[in-house]
Each structure stands twice: as structure tokens, then as C-alpha cells.
């Protein structure tokens, strides 16, 4: 693991001795790391090295073969709902309903996350990602990048402490990438933490950025 | 004029039910279609208004 010097804050997320095999291959084993508030951990590695698998193990979607995840010092399987309340996951799949508008999609996603937001806030968030004029047409008519931008608005309003992001920059143009970086920056500055798998380079202005290389 | 009395006409030679059910159905169908046509026109006009309101709101 490389990166700047660790900050002094306590580690919110600790991963101990994680191992996962897929088919015949052992993707990783004995993997351990910690992430503290204000830190971003970038998971890097070539295609197929297990980045997505690692992220899903941390969320609890995939059951690892070995290892424990500690959330605020407590194993995540003890009270999974507590960890889920504090964690937002954005995977390969968009989780958008094509028939709902951008506005409705945002509303339902946030309600599912237990986040209370006002219509005004949601509208503002959509405007911030450039979807103000298109917030009332069904999402199926949006372009690939516009659909990803709904995800950005969702992140902006989600109060979760930990963000888990798989390829967050896919399909975004330069302006969209800048938007994302700014969001990430704000999140880290406010003491949040993030775990991201990406082939792009992420450089938020604040926060500690570290890298985890998978073989 | 073929009929000799009003009640003859209504009785339709004993087949009143079948004849008037048929004519009644046609009448009802036409009336319903006219109402639907009107409702659709109203909805289309209202949609234009709504669209314009949305536009000015932005």
C-alpha cells in the first residue's frame, strides 16, 4: 500500500485478512487495510484482478471466503443494518428506473437510504449536475452520461459516511469528472471516507488519497 | 308508414328486446365515443397549458 502519511484519526473501516476465490483462482488472500475519516482508498489493478469482488465483499453483498470487516470497531455481521445505514454503494449497475423521471429516481433512492431530503434540495442537486431541464423526462431517454449524473446527485445528498464506488467516472465527460471530484472533495473534507475502484486518476483537493494495488 | 300504432312500433312484433338492445347499443356506443373524443381534446389542450407553465417556471 502506498500513499501519503496516515492521518491520526481513528480508522472507521477496518478490513482484516480478507480472502476470496472465484472459480479456480484465488483472487486475493490475507488482504487487510484500514480507512479513516477524510481518507480515500483507491483500489487499482488490471482488468479482472478482483477490484469489484473486493468492493462487494466490503459492502456485504458477496460473502468472502475468509476475513472480517470492522465498522467503527465492530464486526459488520453483528449489526449489518448499522453499517448499511452508514454506507452508500454505487456499483456497475445504475439502479435507475427507466420509467421514472430523474427527480423521482432521486427521491426514491434517497428514501430507501433513509435520508430525509426536501424537493428543493433534490432539485438543486439535479441542477448542480446539469439535469435541471431534464429532471422531468423519463430516465430512459437520458444519454449514458446523463444517467450517471443522476448517480452523482444521489451521492451528493446521501448522508452516508462511507462511499464505495466502482468505476465512478465511466461515461462522464470532462465537466462531469470535475463535478465528481468536487463532490468527493467535499465528502472527504467533511470527514467522510471513500473506497473506489477505478482506472482513472482521482485527485481531490482535500483528504488523504491512498492506493491499494491488487496483483 | 308501416306501423299502425305507437305500441306496435315499440313491440316490434314481439322482438322488442332484441331490436331495441341492438339500437340502444349503437346509440350508447356513439354517445360514449363522442364523450371520449371531447375528453381527449380537453386533455390535449390542458397538456399544452401545463407544458407552457413548466417552461415559464424554469
Amino acid at each position, binding site marked *: 500500500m502506498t500513499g501519503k502519511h496516515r492521518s491520526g484519526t481513528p480508522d472507521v473501516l477496518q478490513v482484516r485478512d480478507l480472502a476470496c476465490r472465484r472459480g479456480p483462482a484465488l483472487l486475493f488472500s490475507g488482504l487487510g487495510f484500514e480507512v479513516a475519516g477524510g481518507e480515500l482508498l483507491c483500489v487499482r489493478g488490471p482488468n479482472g484482478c478482483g477490484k469489484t469482488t473486493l468492493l462487494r465483499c466490503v459492502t456485504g453483498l458477496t460473502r468472502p471466503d475468509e476475513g472480517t470487516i470492522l465498522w467503527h470497531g465492530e464486526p459488520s455481521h453483528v449489526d449489518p443494518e448499522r453499517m448499511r445505514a452508514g454506507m452508500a454503494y454505487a456499483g456497475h449497475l445504475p439502479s435507475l428506473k427507466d420509467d421514472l423521471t430523474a427527480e423521482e429516481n432521486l427521491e426514491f433512492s434517497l428514501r430507501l437510504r433513509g435520508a430525509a431530503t426536501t424537493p428543493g434540495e433534490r432539485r438543486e442537486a439535479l441542477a448542480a449536475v446539469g439535469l435541471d431541464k431534464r429532471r422531468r423526462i423519463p430516465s430512459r431517454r437520458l444519454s449514458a452520461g446523463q444517467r450517471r449524473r443522476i448517480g452523482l446527485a444521489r451521492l451528493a445528498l446521501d448522508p452516508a459516511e462511507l462511499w464505495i464506488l466502482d468505476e465512478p467516472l465511466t461515461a462522464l465527460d470532462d465537466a462531469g469528472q470535475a463535478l465528481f471530484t468536487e463532490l468527493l472533495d467535499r465528502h472527504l473534507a467533511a470527514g467522510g471516507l471513500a473506497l473506489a475502484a477505478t482506472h482513472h486518476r482521482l485527485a481531490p483537493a482535500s483528504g488523504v488519497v491512498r492506493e491499494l494495488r491488487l496483483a | 308508414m308501416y306501423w299502425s300504432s305507437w305500441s306496435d312500433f315499440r313491440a316490434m312484433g314481439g322482438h322488442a328486446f*332484441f*331490436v331495441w338492445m*341492438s*339500437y340502444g347499443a349503437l346509440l350508447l356506443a356513439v354517445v360514449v365515443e363522442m364523450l371520449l373524443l371531447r375528453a381527449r381534446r380537453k386533455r390535449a389542450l390542458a397538456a399544452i397549458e401545463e407544458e407552457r407553465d413548466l417552461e415559464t417556471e424554469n
Partner: protein
Amino acid sequence: MNWFYFSSPSTFYGLAGRLAPWCFVSAAVLAAWGLYLGLLVAPTDAQQGEVYRVIFIHVPTAWMSMFLYFIMACYCGLTLVFNTRLSAMMARAIAPTGAMFTFVALWTGSFWGRPTWGTYWVWDARLTSELVLLFLYFGYIALANAFEDPRRGDRAAALLALIGVVNLPIIYFSVQWWNTLHQGSSVNFKGTSMHVTMLTGMLVMSFAAWMYAIGAALVRVRSIILERERRTQWVRELKAA
């Protein structure tokens, strides 16, 4: 007349608005005349008695159910081949009226069938194929409205309508091809075997149905044009005026 001029929705909108009232007025006049002939003047039928008077609405509606489908299918063909906007809207505007006539033909037929055949319904070829026609209309309407993008709906439904055209000759010739309970045509190109007043009444009622169908389709196509073009400048100006 310049057809291309009127094939633009904005000009057709005005034209349809001017024509529709005249269609309805003539439909009403013709219907009054036809009903007068059919219900008040025409003599009774020797075999069936008075119940035969259903013929004055059964036959015109049955004819219209097939004619309208045929015309709708023609518009659908235009839509698929030339991608014209107005033809698709016309096809959509005709479908509900066609379904209405089909329904009335089925309904009057079965209320006629009870006293003459002793049953409301049999599964003979004519009746079954007419019922399939009703479902083709329903299918057309449902499919046309099942897409987010109306142009997609136009094209998919147009194709369905064209596939369904096979059903028309089946309806029409079923009485000849199979021996059905339903009677064969008495009006054809070789003349007719009917009493003159009956025939006149039936034809007048058919013209009334024609006029009504055209009027209803024109009114409906105006709504469709407004729905489709509600974001265009000319509709806005229209509404402001």
C-alpha cells in the same frame, strides 16, 4: 389541390377542424333518413318478422368494421414505407372508431342471432374472425400506446395492422369458404335480392356510418396532433390566439 401542403400536421389540423362539423351534420341527416326508412317505412320480413330490422345497423356497422380496418392498414403502409407523420396519426385516429363499429356489429349480430339461430354466439368462421378483428383493433391501440417514443409505437403498431389484413378476406369470404350459420352476402356486384326500401335504408345507414366515422376520425386526429406537436411553435400560437 396540393397534397403535400395538407400532409403537414399544422395545415391538416385546420382543414380537419373545418371538415368535421359537416361530416357530423350529414351523418345526422343521413341517419335520420335511414332510420325513418328502416324503422318506419320498410315492410316486415316474411321469414324473420320484425327482428330483421336489426339489419339496418348490423350490416352498416359490419361493413364499416372492415372498411375502416382496410383504410387504417393503408395509412399504416404509408407510415412504414414513407415514414410520413400524418398517416400514422390518421391510423391511430381511425382505430378506436373501427373498434367501436366492430363491437356494435358483434353485439347486434348476437342479439339478432338469439331469436333467429336460438343462440347468442357460435364459434363459426364469420363470427370468430370478426371477433379476432376486434382484438386486432385492441392490439393495435395497446401496442401503439405501449412505447415511450410515439414514433416507435406508430411503426410497431403499423406492422401489426398489416399482418392483420389477412383477416379481412377471411371475414368477408368465410360464408362462402365454409358452410356457416351466418348467411351469405345478398348485396354484391351481380345485384341484389332485397326489397328496394330495405336496400335503400341499409345503404343510407351505411353512408351515415361513413360520415360519422370520418367526422370522429378527424376530431380525434386533431387531438392527436395537439398531443404530438404540443411543443411546437404553431401549437403555442394557436393556443394563445
